[in-house]
């Protein structure tokens, strides 16, 4: 067994530098790497590019980095929940690349799996296809999309073991599994860190080979964006 544990978020983020490209798991505020984000704020890394489906809200998630203007470029599919984001984008302070959600997921998965490029129908005939190769398959036009390249992936899992094996919970899974191993270094924060052998090998969502560093997150706020009840 190869031990992937680090003691805390500070150790986990060693090597993080200005100008790097990060992947961050989560959908909305669900399943975001809260502890790593806070450490990024604390370290005040500058000019970073973030690949993340959403951009948090004004005072939580990636919104915290936006507020401090640490982000140079966002690569996302939907950023509607964040007013500061929209302001920075419309004013030109922030470079934004909006791409279809499925393409975002698949470009992560391609990076994880050593697939340099693939074809998808999503975005054909739209702005998204501009400058991209278009090719017909089965009589239908598709566009070529490439694997992402990133320096760090910041992941939130529910449980993990010391070997880096991960289990996610409910819809907090989302982009987290496909970003593991899609960057040079994958950093995972978990709610519960267990010994090897405590997770059923048949129900591991992401094997430890895709993970470089794992730690137990100090605190998870798990903020809910739209508390909706019957």
């Amino acid at each position: 067994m190869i031990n992937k544990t680090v003691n805390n978020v500070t150790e986990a983020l060693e090597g993080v530098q200005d100008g790097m490209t990060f992947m961050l798991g989560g959908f909305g505020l669900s399943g975001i790497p809260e502890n790593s984000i806070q450490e990024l704020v604390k370290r005040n890394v500058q000019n970073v590019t973030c690949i993340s489906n959403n951009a948090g809200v004004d005072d939580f998630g990636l919104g915290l980095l936006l507020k401090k203007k640490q982000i140079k470029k966002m690569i996302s599919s939907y950023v509607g929940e964040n007013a500061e984001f929209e302001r920075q984008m419309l004013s030109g302070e922030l470079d934004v690349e909006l791409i279809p959600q499925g393409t975002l997921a698949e470009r992560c998965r391609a990076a994880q799996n050593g697939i340099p490029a693939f074809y998808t129908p999503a975005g054909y005939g739209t702005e998204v296809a501009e400058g991209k190769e278009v090719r017909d398959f089965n009589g239908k036009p598709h566009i070529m999309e490439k694997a992402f390249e990133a320096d760090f992936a910041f992941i939130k899992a529910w449980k993990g073991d010391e070997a880096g094996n991960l289990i996610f919970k409910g819809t907090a899974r989302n982009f987290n599994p496909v970003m593991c191993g899609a960057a040079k270094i994958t950093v995972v924060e978990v709610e519960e860190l267990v010994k090897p052998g405590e997770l059923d090998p048949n129900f591991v969502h992401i094997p430890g080979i895709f993970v470089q560093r794992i730690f137990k997150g100090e605190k998870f706020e798990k903020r809910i964006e739209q508390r909706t009840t019957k």
Partner: protein
Amino acid sequence: MLDKNGIAKRIAQEVQDGFYVNLGIGIPTLVANYVRDDIELEFQSENGILGMGPFPREEEVDADLINAGKQTITALPGASFFDSSMSFGMIRGQHVDLTILGAMEVAQNGNIANWKIPGKMVKGMGGAMDLVGSAKNIIVAMMHTNKAGDSKLLKTCSLPLTGVECVTKIVTNLAVLDIVDKKFRLLERAPGISVEDIQKATEGELIIEGDIPEMSI
């Protein structure tokens, strides 16, 4: 004229037995409330759940269980969770039978625009481009005209496109239409709405064949 719930009610009639259905944010979400309960169906939410259930009771609320609109939800027996890659695999691979989503504009060739107003509103396309790029069966739920009274059923879209020649059917507050030979074909009128009312509110070419029945909802 229909209100939002009326539109949802009419669209619910399109849901067939054995359908996997993806509901967009807004009016589409309401469709779930009106589907006949004697048919088998499952709702997919593209953030990673199949078999989505109703909103939770206060004590059931779980931050790790939300839908694509970021609302807290529940999971029905037989549900499953999965990652974003598999979720869009279901969509891209045409395993989802019916997609219902909103739009700012629909053109008579089936083009749709619903993600961006240049210089004004840029929220992003989310999963919409994947959905309209692959789905075989796309129903648009929207008001027939915008707040300024301008038609949203156009000859050509003026806003940046979400997808091309993809919309199958449109259900508005005034009418049900489908797309034939790159024109809108009027199928049903909303209660109390005349063919002329619909003609007036439709900028795109409109095919009107024979008697147009009033929809029954």
